[in-house]
C-alpha cells in the first residue's frame, strides 16, 4: 500500500495540531492569537489531506491542500485588515472588550 511513514503518524500529528488550534481558539483573547489558532486548525486539515492522499495514492488531497493554503492566506489578510481597523478605532485588542453587542 504505502512505503515510508505510516498513515497513523500523519493522523496523529494532524489531530494534535487540530486540538492545539481548538484549545487556542477557546482560551485566547487576543484576536491575533485567535487567527494563529485558526490557521493551526486549517493546516492540521492540510496534513490530514496530504496523508490520506499518499495513503490512497491519488493527488486529489494534495490539490485540496493547495486550495486550502490559498483560502487560509485570504482569511488571514481579511483578519489582519479587520484587526488594524479595530486598532485604529482605538478599541481594546481583546475580544472580551468587544461587547457592545450582547443580549
Amino acid at each position, binding site marked *: 500500500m504505502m512505503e515510508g511513514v505510516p498513515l497513523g503518524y500523519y493522523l496523529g500529528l494532524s489531530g494534535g495540531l487540530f486540538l492545539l488550534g481548538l484549545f487556542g481558539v477557546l482560551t485566547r483573547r487576543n484576536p491575533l492569537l485567535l487567527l494563529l489558532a485558526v490557521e493551526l486548525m486549517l493546516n492540521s486539515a492540510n496534513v490530514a489531506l496530504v496523508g490520506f492522499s499518499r495513503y490512497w495514492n491519488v493527488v486529489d488531497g494534495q490539490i485540496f491542500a493547495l486550495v486550502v493554503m490559498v483560502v487560509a492566506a*485570504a482569511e488571514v489578510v481579511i483578519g489582519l485588515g479587520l484587526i488594524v481597523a479595530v486598532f485604529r478605532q482605538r478599541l481594546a485588542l481583546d475580544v472580551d472588550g468587544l461587547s457592545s453587542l450582547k443580549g
Partner: protein
Amino acid sequence: MKVVPALPPLIVAAGACLVLLLGLVSNRRIKRDGPLWLGSATIIGAAVMSLVLWGDRQEALGGGYRADRFSMLLNLVFLACAFAVLLLSTREPAGVDRRGEYACLLLTATAGMMLVAGAGDLIVMFLGIEILSVALYVLCALEVWRERSLEAGLKYLIVGAVGSSIFLYGLAFLFGATGSVQLSVIGEQLAVASFTEEPLLLVAIALVASGLAFKASAAPFHMWTPDVYQGAPTPITAFMATATKVAALAAFLRIFGSALTDLVDTWQIAIAVIAAASIVIGNVAALAQRDLKRLLAYSSIAQAGYLLTGVAAGTIKGAEAVLYYLIAYAAMTLAAFAIVIIREREVEDGDRLEALAGYGRARPVLGVVATVAMLSLAGFPPLSGFIGKFLLFGAAVEQDLTWLAVIGAVGSMVSLGYYLRVLRVMWFGEPEGGTPRKMLTIPAPGPARSRWSASASARPCWWTSAATRPPPCSPPDPRSAGVGRAPPWGGGTRRPGGRSVGP
C-alpha cells in the same frame, strides 16, 4: 473539459471583477450609478443563463460543478436575494460611499453560494463556502466608522473561520474514508461497502455537520448569530439571513441528502438533535428581544431548525420540502428586513422595536407587508410559511421523527408570541417620536479636485448622533482634513461640518 454548465457562477464572478473596476473610474456619474447597473445586469445575465441550463444534470470543470435542476433553482434564489439586497443598499452609508467594492463583494459572495449549490466535489464545496464567507466578513465590517459593525465583522471572522476549519477537517476525513473527493464517487463507495462502523467516517460526519451548522447558524453553534446580525449593516444582515442560510442548507442537502444518503441511519439522529435544539433555543431566546434585528436573528436560528427537520428526514420528499421552505423563508425574511431598513433611514436606531410603534398606521402598505411576512414566518395557515412547515413536518413524521415534528409545531406556536408582539407594536403602539435621523445626501457629480479632497466630497454624510456620541472616526478638527495625513479608510477624511444636512 466543459465550461458552459458552470457559466452562472462564472458570469457573476466576472461581473464582480468589472464592478470593482467601475468603482475606480474617475467619472463621478459612472462611479455613482455604474455599480448598481452593472451589478443588476450581471445578476440578470446569470439568471437567464440558469434558466437556459435548466434541465438534466450536466457536469462542468471535470465534474467539479454540476448544473442540474437543484443548483439552477438555488441559483435563482441566490440571485433574487442578491438583487433585492443590491436595491435595498442604494442608500446605505457603506454602499453609497464605496459602491464599487460593495457591489463587488456582494456579487463575490453570490458566486460562492452558487458554487456551493452546484458543487460536484468537496474541493469546490469548501471553496464556495470560503468565498462566500470571506466576502461576508468584509461586508459585515464595511461601516468601519461604526464600532458595532467592526465588532460584528471581527466576531464573524473568528467564529466563521473556526466553523470553516471544523468543516474542512470533516471533509478531509470524508476523503480519507472513501479515497475520493467527488461527491458522486463517495456516494457509490458508501453504497457498495459497509462503512457504518468506520470510525473515520463517524468523525467525518460529526465534523461536517458541526461545521455546516456554524454556517447555517443552527444551535448549539448559533452564538455568533445575534451579535453579527445586529452589528452588520442591515441589508447585509438580510443577505446573511437569507442567501447564506440557503447556501448552508444546500451544502447539507448535497452532502447528507445526496452523497451520504446510504448512511442515513447514522447521521439522522445527529441532524435531528441539532434541529430540535435550534427550534427550542431560537424561539425561546427570541421572546426576550427588544431589538428587531436580534429578534429576527433568533427567529432565523429557529427557522434553521425547521429546515434541518427536512434534512433529517433524509428522503426526496424532505429535500423538496426544504427547497420549498427555503424559497418561502427567503422572501419572508427579505420583506421583514426591508421594513427595518426603511425605518432605519427615518429615525435613529430604527431597529429597536419601539421605533416601529404605530408605524403600521402611519405607513399602511409597509404595515401590511410586515404583517404578511411575520404571520408567514410564524406559519399562519393560508400563507407559504404554513405550507412549508406542513411539508417539512410531514416528511419528518414519515421517517418516524414524530417527536421532532411535535417540537417544531410547539416551537411555531411559541414563535407566535414574538411575531405577534411586533405586529401589536406596529399597529397599536403609540408613536414615540424618535430622533429623526439626519438624512444622507449624495453629493451631485462635480469636477474632481485633488485625489483626497475629491473622495472627501464624494463621501456621503452619514448621520451623526451628535447628541449622544460622535462617530469615533470623525474628527471635528480642521487639521485632520488636510492632505498631509493618510486617510483613515482610504477614502479621505471628512471636512468638519461636511455635508451633513438636517432632515
